[in-house]
């Protein structure tokens, strides 16, 4: 099978229309702090993985985008996945849950213990903890309880390694009009009427993590965050690695996608990426697309993932992280990823956002007071990849750049 990858920059930021029913779309949004992924699963059904805020509009990026291409989120979003509860992956997810009346909410099994809900209720009511991941979860839970009273499907589904989270079986249905099969069929069988018959693309969404060992680590961490009586109130600051992040493997027709979340590698072979690669019960197909884990950092890299879980020269997308002590991906990370595939892209350049204009007196005082100061957000960008699922040979991939998105090879010149 040959592959053609077309790279185009959006002119004037025009988003165009929605993908066709038979088109796969992977959209990755990233403002340098936070990340969100949208996947068109075919048949006008979408999955939202995490949420971030567009720093310009202050609206949840996946919602803003869907409205922008004329898709109604309340009907189209079927799955919402919170891969982990860190602040940068969950901002705005409450508004996504609120608008998505037909969606199944999925989160890590690490959050199913009563201690997590106690943590959410304890901190969620504290106004001082605005904008934290826990606060966002508090919103989500309250919205889900409201949905419950309106008879919508709401009980969460918990992701754990080797669990099939959702699937759409390939069936002939009168309810869903698969345009591509109709068009093909009409071409060859002009006398037949297809108005009541269509083909639904098969699709499966698997969780590849967290492993049992990772779960136990996460349970301990969450329990340790629970405050005790007479302890001073503080905002929760997540310090530990992302043990319990949910990695997803999505199969749509013949195409597979690996969404790496923020899962990092650990020294324990039964946790992190080692546990996933060594699993004998995970889907064995090789993915054509990967959302590179943890902003391309070296501690989330496992070479066996590239050798054993991905096609040769896959299309790779990442979002940078500019609000830490180390900006990710580093130049070394970028070179490492580009060596594995030259079809690698970033939602934005890995640098903090532009200088904030302020009163000169304020600026002078800031310089005298702090060692350093930088915007938490970097430039805003969006990478969109579309392909027609019905193609089996000569698959054509369209990679589009919006905002500050760019090929990874251009990131450090």
């Amino acid at each position, binding site marked *: 099978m040959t592959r053609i990858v077309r790279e185009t920059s959006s002119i004037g930021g025009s988003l165009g229309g929605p993908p066709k029913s038979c088109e796969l779309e992977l959209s990755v949004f990233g403002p340098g702090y936070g990340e969100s992924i949208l996947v068109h699963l075919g048949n006008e059904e979408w999955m939202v993985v995490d949420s971030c805020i567009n720093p310009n509009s202050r609206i949840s990026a996946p919602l803003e985008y869907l409205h922008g291409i004329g898709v109604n989120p309340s009907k189209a979003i079927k799955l919402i996945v919170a891969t982990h509860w860190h602040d940068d992956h969950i901002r705005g997810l409450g508004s996504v849950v609120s608008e998505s009346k037909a969606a199944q909410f999925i989160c890590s099994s690490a959050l199913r213990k009563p201690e997590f809900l106690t943590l959410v209720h304890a901190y969620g009511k504290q106004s*001082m903890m605005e*904008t934290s991941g826990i606060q966002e979860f508090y919103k989500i839970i309250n919205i889900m*309880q409201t949905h419950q009273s309106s008879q919508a499907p709401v009980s969460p589904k918990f992701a754990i390694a080797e669990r099939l989270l959702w699937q759409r079986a390939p069936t002939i249905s009168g309810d869903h009009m698969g345009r591509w099969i109709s068009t093909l069929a009409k071409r060859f069988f002009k006398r037949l009427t297809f108005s009541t018959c269509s083909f639904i693309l098969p699709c499966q969404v698997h969780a590849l993590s967290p492993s049992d060992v990772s779960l136990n680590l996460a349970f301990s961490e969450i329990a340790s965050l629970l405050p005790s009586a007479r302890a001073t109130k503080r*905002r929760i600051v997540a310090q530990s690695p992302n043990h319990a992040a949910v990695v997803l493997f999505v199969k749509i027709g013949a195409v597979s996608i690996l969404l790496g979340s923020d899962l990092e590698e650990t020294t324990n072979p039964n946790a992190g990426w080692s546990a996933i690669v060594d699993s004998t019960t995970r889907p064995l197909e090789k993915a054509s697309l990967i959302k590179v884990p943890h902003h391309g950092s070296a501690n989330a890299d496992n070479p066996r993932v590239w050798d054993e879980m991905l096609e040769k020269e896959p299309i790779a997308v990442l979002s940078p992280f500019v609000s830490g002590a180390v900006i990710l991906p580093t130049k070394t990370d970028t070179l490492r990823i580009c060596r594995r595939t030259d079809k690698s892209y970033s939602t934005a350049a890995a640098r903090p956002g532009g200088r904030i204009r302020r009163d000169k007196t304020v600026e002078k005082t800031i310089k005298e*007071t702090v060692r350093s*100061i930088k915007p938490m957000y970097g430039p805003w960008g969006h990478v969109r990849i579309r392909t027609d699922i019905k193609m089996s040979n000569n698959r054509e991939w369209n990679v589009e750049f919006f905002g500050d998105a760019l090929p990874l090879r251009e990131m450090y010149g």
Partner: protein
Amino acid sequence: MKPEPLQTVSSPQKGLSTFDTPDLPLIYIDDFLPPDRHNVVNHNAESETIYSPPDDSSKQINAPVVFPRTPPLIQEHFIPLQKWEGVVDQVKSDYFIARLVDQTGTTPDELAEFMLDEVSKGDRTLVKPGAIFYWNIGYEESLGGQRKRSSIIRFRRLPAWSAHELEAAKHDADRTRDILNWR
């Protein structure tokens, strides 16, 4: 019935002006200022002090003459130019990293490194991950009109968790667990 003698206002903590005499009780004009004028930041002290006016309900005033008071030099007004709410993210040996949320305008959140020396000694024990503080930049203006550029970092002294709050959180969590079948 013999009427009770009228009570007088005495302000032993306030300094005497040239018009004060020990025998004649006086009332000062700042006793009549609205409450917000009493929120005077004393920047020489380690924490904010708020002067509370005397309880008017328990006194009657028999001094009709009001003299302006010469204010102590330490009393200044703060004219803010920029305010942030900060959350401590990491604490290192001699500095800490904090996330700043603009309270004045709509500039994006920022990440800043502060030397611990910038924090007053009284607040330094509060510098821990998750601690919340305010950083204000502006002018201190004395009542005499002198201006001084100033940067003030003040950590919030949040109340401790109570057993009741934690019990309520657990109760709410159990309820959510049942409603959403979160198990």
